[in-house]
């Protein structure tokens, strides 16, 4: 095989395999965390957190260069992006509750504010001698082809730790998402669990920055979860299905962006996830009609 978009041995080198595995782990995390984000009606908050990672990444890069440490280090960028994403995820609900702005207005103000700050800081990064070559532009829409094995290792590590936390506290998180008052009366530490879920959201944003991009990472959080939710079933089944759809979309996006020149990975993942969502509608209709039949038979 000789064409550019071939699936020959060099295309599947060690780096590609590592990056594809990193994307797969990110997809699993995004799908399962997205199930909780969707259940808690925090989709727009996830979008705010994604966009808010941008100024943190730019600041981390500039500080790294200023301190003469590697400003391009994935861990440093994760720390910077995670800090501002967390700040946004924390202060947006506070704005909504304390200032009588409502979630809708608070999300819009925070998203525009953080992203505006991010673009200003990014112009500073571009004017920096090493900034333009730093490859940070890929963080907007993602570029799996440009990330290194160490980047992939870093994002896969964060995603795996977050997935482990999600699995360990799955039932407590699900009770919180379904009926917070009951969780409180039962004595669960709802505030801590709430903060942990926000941290998982931030971890997903951070893990997805390089592959999906900060502007589109929300699509990988919401679309696979929405597709799984349309199909229905128990919460555990929905989260598992969302994780599987997330893996499929992330890997499809990563492969498509490597195979087709100039296609950002985030855009390819988003298209795959949107396709999965629309495909879920006829699938759900099939299962729904079967369940409806049973319900009519057993209705009391």
């Amino acid at each position, binding site marked *: 095989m000789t064409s550019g978009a071939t699936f020959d041995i060099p295309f599947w080198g060690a780096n590609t395999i590592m990056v594809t595995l990193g994307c797969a782990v990110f997809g699993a995390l995004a799908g399962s965390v997205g199930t909780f984000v969707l259940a808690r009606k925090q989709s727009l908050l996830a979008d705010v957190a994604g966009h808010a990672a941008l100024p943190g990444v730019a600041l981390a890069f500039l500080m790294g260069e200023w301190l003469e440490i590697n400003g391009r280090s994935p861990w440093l960028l994760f720390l910077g992006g995670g800090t501002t994403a967390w700040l946004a995820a924390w202060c947006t609900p506070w704005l909504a509750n304390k200032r009588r702005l409502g979630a809708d207005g608070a999300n819009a103000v925070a998203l525009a504010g953080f992203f505006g700050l991010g673009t200003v800081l990014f112009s500073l990064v571009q004017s920096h001698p090493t900034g333009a070559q730093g490859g940070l532009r890929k963080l907007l829409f993602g570029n799996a082809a440009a990330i290194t094995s160490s980047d992939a290792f870093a994002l896969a590590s964060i995603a795996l730790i977050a997935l482990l936390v999600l699995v360990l506290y799955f039932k407590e998180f699900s009770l919180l998402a379904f009926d917070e008052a009951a969780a409180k009366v039962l004595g669960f530490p709802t505030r801590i669990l709430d903060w942990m879920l926000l941290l998982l959201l931030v971890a997903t944003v951070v893990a997805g920055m390089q592959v999906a991009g900060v502007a589109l990472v929300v699509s990988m959080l919401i679309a696979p979860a929405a597709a799984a939710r349309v199909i229905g079933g128990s919460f555990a089944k929905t989260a598992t299905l969302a994780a599987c759809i997330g893996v499929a979309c992330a890997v499809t996006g990563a492969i498509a962006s490597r195979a087709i020149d100039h296609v950002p990975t985030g855009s390819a993942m988003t298209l795959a996830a949107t396709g999965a969502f629309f495909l879920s509608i006829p699938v759900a209709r099939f299962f729904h009609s079967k369940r409806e039949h049973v*319900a009519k038979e057993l209705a009391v």
Partner: protein
Amino acid sequence: MSAKPCPLDIQNFSAGYGNGELVVRDASFRLRAGAMTALVGPNGAGKSTLLKGALGLLTHADTACVRFFGRPLEEVRARVAYLPQRAEIDWTFPASALDVAAMGLYRKIGFFHRVTGRWKAEARKALALVGMESLENMPIGELSGGQQQRVLLARSLAQGADLLMLDEPFVNVDFATEERLGAVLREACQRGMSVFAVHHDLGDVRRYFDEAVLFDGTVVAHGAIDVALADANLHEAFRLGPPPEEAIP
């Protein structure tokens, strides 16, 4: 033989929201164990605030004045269950009836442990007690309003609660469902549970409840239905002015 401990003892309890204004003022009453007690009063009287405040769900509530089974809530959480208004729950949440019933067992199961077959069997038993075992795999969003209430009730039964606190359980359900729910609650009482429910319809309090707390920001009257809901008390709580004088024969 010692008397059963009072399931809910509230003395001089006050509660409100963040603006500093008290919605519940100096409320005092004691529930009778094993009885179905209704909390009735006009709209905006603070009935839901009383319930939520007593359960520690509000930041501005004097929970030190509240005792459940003679103890602070913190010590007897497993014995108290709360069913919010149906509108406060997202019924599109992707969960089956069995999932929701099993949530009542989460405290017993403990952190880091899965809901195994043994726990599912317990949740199934609770669903059977409310006649919902045949719909255990049904997504909750596809159940009727009455079935959804029964699933929440099964969650409380699975929890092993001795006091059930419900906020408007009969709202937006048809008459047949209301009757079925009332019967299920009565059966729960016969098994030793006490029921305390916010109820808005004065017309059918007698049909379902043994006692009533008439409430208008504070307790206007409390006791057997006929005593608590006497005309004079209703006129005071609903601010209807003095009751009409009896006709002179």
